[in-house]
């Protein structure tokens, strides 16, 4: 008997798990939400395109997340046993480590690009954005600040540096996500709830990028140069630069807020800004080569099957990421 459940059922559980985590009042409930989330995401990974790569990704993801969840429930028990008698920081430390493993912060980030590499764009988007919500919420409640800031700075730098030589769009997004986690961790270190806004804008930008890659069927950087549609190029690169945080674009807004939050500590701010400069460097390098150096065009290349309707949607979204900083910054003034 072949039991087949279509993916949208799992997406319901995916949603529910995160909601349980976010709204639970105990660490045990949060852990339960995490597990539901994990268990519903794995079939989604495998089901949507049943091939070797996605299965490999699912296995890797499962192993990492299960071990991290184990440490989370272990530290919850630790809390439970020792809460009244000691003021130990050990469970906080362990939770911080475990959750950063779940999030893929450096130096536990190695699994993240490899898992992402095997997914299709919808699942990539879920992994990049939705799957981060519950660990981040728990992390913002139980973190050990010294470990958190170390991990944050490491992931900002490593994410930026590792992204340089990449040619796969998924890996670029993965390393960019790691780098953004560094910023989020940096804001969290200063007990600011503005990390949520950072995460929202990041999710928005990631959504546009994944959506456009999905629409235009792009997986590797070399395919970008072959794009015949100049508008598509513009859409992709405006959003990439927005993801990198180039000032007039939307992606700069959360970085701006983060700078305002972190301005009390100059070295942290410097490391974060320099790492995002490196990110911007390779985005601009991609841009530059795509727009100027060469445009490949092959007569036998397959036709692009992008419908105008989706293109319209993408254009609207890109418009938001171009001028989005103005109304948003007014909102935060």
């Amino acid at each position, binding site marked *: 008997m072949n039991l087949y459940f279509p993916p949208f059922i799992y997406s319901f559980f995916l949603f529910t798990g995160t909601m349980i985590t976010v709204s639970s009042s105990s660490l045990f409930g949060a852990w339960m939400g995490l597990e539901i989330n994990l268990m519903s995401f794995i079939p989604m990974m495998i089901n949507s395109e049943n091939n070797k790569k996605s299965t490999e990704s699912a296995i890797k993801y499962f192993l990492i997340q299960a071990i991290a969840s184990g440490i989370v429930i272990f530290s919850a028990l630790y809390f439970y046993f020792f809460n009244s008698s000691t003021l130990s920081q050990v469970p906080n430390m362990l939770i911080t480590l475990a959750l950063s493993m779940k999030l893929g912060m450096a130096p536990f980030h190695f699994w993240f690009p490899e898992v992402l590499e095997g997914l299709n764009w919808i699942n990539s988007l879920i992994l990049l954005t939705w799957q981060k919500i519950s660990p981040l919420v728990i992390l913002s409640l139980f973190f050990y600040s010294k470990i958190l800031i170390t991990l944050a700075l490491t992931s900002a730098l490593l994410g930026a*540096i590792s992204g340089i*030589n990449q040619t796969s769009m998924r890996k670029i997004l993965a390393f960019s996500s790691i780098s953004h986690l560094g910023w989020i961790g940096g804001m969290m270190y200063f007990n600011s709830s503005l990390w949520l806004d950072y995460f929202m804008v990041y999710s928005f930008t990631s959504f546009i990028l994944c959506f456009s890659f999905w629409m235009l069927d792009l997986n590797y950087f070399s395919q970008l140069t072959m794009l015949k549609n100049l508008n598509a190029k513009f859409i992709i690169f405006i959003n990439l630069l927005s993801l990198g945080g180039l000032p007039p674009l939307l992606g700069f807004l959360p970085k701006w807020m983060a700078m305002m939050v972190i301005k009390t500590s100059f070295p942290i701010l410097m490391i974060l800004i320099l790492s995002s400069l490196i990110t911007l460097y390779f985005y601009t390098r991609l841009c530059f080569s795509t727009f100027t150096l060469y445009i490949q065009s092959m007569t036998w290349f397959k036709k692009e099957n992008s419908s105008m309707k989706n293109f319209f949607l993408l254009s609207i979204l890109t418009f938001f990421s171009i001028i989005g900083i103005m109304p948003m910054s007014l909102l935060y003034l």
Partner: protein
Amino acid sequence: MFVLSMWNLIFLLFFSFSFILFFSSMLFLNLSYSLYLSWNIFSWGSTDINMIFLLDWVCLMFLSFVLFISGSVFYYSGEYMEGEINLSRFIFLLAGFVGSMGLLIFSPNLISILLGWDGLGLVSYCLVIYYQNYKSLNAGTLTVLSNRVGDVLILLGIVWMINFGDWSFVAWLGSSNSLILVSALIVLASLTKSAQIPFSAWLPAAMAAPTPVSSLVHSSTLVTAGIYLVIRLGWVYDFWMNELLMILSVLTMFMAGLGACFEFDLKKIIALSTLSQLGLMMYSLSLGLVKVALFHLLMHTLFKALLFMSAGCIIHGFKGWQDIRMMGNMMISLPFISSCFVVSNLALSGMPFLAGFYSKDMILELSLMEELNLLSLFMLFLSTGLTVAYTFRLIYYMVRRDYVMSGSGNLSDGWGVMVKSCIGLVTFSVFFGALISWLSMDVNSIILPKSLKNLTLTVCILGLILGFFMSQSSYTFSKMKFSLMIWFSGSMWFLPYLSSQPMTYIPLKLGSEIMKFGDMGWLEYLGGQGISSYISNMSLKIQIMSMNSLKVFILILWILVSVFMFF
């Protein structure tokens, strides 16, 4: 035909304005009346940006002379520039020249002076490079960069005047240190514009311009702008740079006179004579003889414009040939033009009762009455003698000597436009010296012993004899073997070499070195490319780390967790 009438129209306009201005200047002088108009353009903080017009007899008369000469030059250009392709550009440039000069003359406000000053510099550059070749370009670049130094000095003065909240330096009488500094800056700027000694290389180089332009530039506008500014300033302040100014101006005179004696290019000789006269004006300013300097300035505009215009006629007749060694015997071939030439040359050298005599003689005699150092006195009279010498050498070469140009020439006065345009200037060169001196100078104050009174005359006669002997080819050509001394004296004491090559050589070499070691070397290694490749390599190593098995990544977590468990 339309273009010719365009020239005539401008000529008539300028001429009538010139007369109106001259008579109003006489009126203002007679009533000792002046008008100070100030229009507040905007006020910013406590500083006022004003447009100021100061109308008194000095500026009215100077502008009337400028307009008269530029009108004559416009009229003259109608024939000289005949068949020119870019005529409208030429007309606009000349008009821009006169306009900038008017701004400079009327408005004793540093900002508007800078406007006029920059306008003069820019237009002079455009005019020097009017004939588009490399020589003109080099000359124009030298001109505009030398003038640029003056612009920068005036800009510094403007920056300093912000302390006073107002840029009309005439309104700030007094002797505070900052005003002295501002006046020093303006005097230094004037040194560049009137080509005094450290900056004098551009003036002969600017002879690459068309001759009518030279006539306008070197008589009444560009080079006299500096002198006029110092006159305006000298009306108000005492200088503290008197000694420096005196030495520089006397050296300029001497250098220019000496250079003119060795020069064979017609226009360059005249340019050098301009330089020497400018030196004389600067000299009298350094003695505080402001009014006499103005007098000489006005006279100089007249005879120098005439000199250039008649030289232009000659060059035009010789179809662009400028070397005086190939000219001669013009009193037969060009009787009217050569007489204009001789009149203006005599006026230049200070022949009694011509225009130059009154002013020059007055400067010399008044300076004999001042407390002078012997060196500058000696140089002053030496260069006066040299002026006479090169003038008579020029007259001899051009007018008296046998015609030595090979082949046939087509020289004639005719009744062309160029000849007609000289008439007014000849008249004025003859009469105006006496006229202006009677009108505006008081000449009763010169009291000298007989020996000193005769000194000028003696020097001039000695110069005449020197000039005569200098122009005899049997005395000169046989002796004119190359020597360092002749090279030194004939090339303006190496100033053109000094002010062009070393000025560019060292910065260019330094720039290329810095470029090589900095931008293309260490900065590239430590900056952009170096960091990029370093990060790339680092990324490669991290990539190798991520090629491990998944177990290794879990191991990292386990190690850290077990370390922190027992913290």
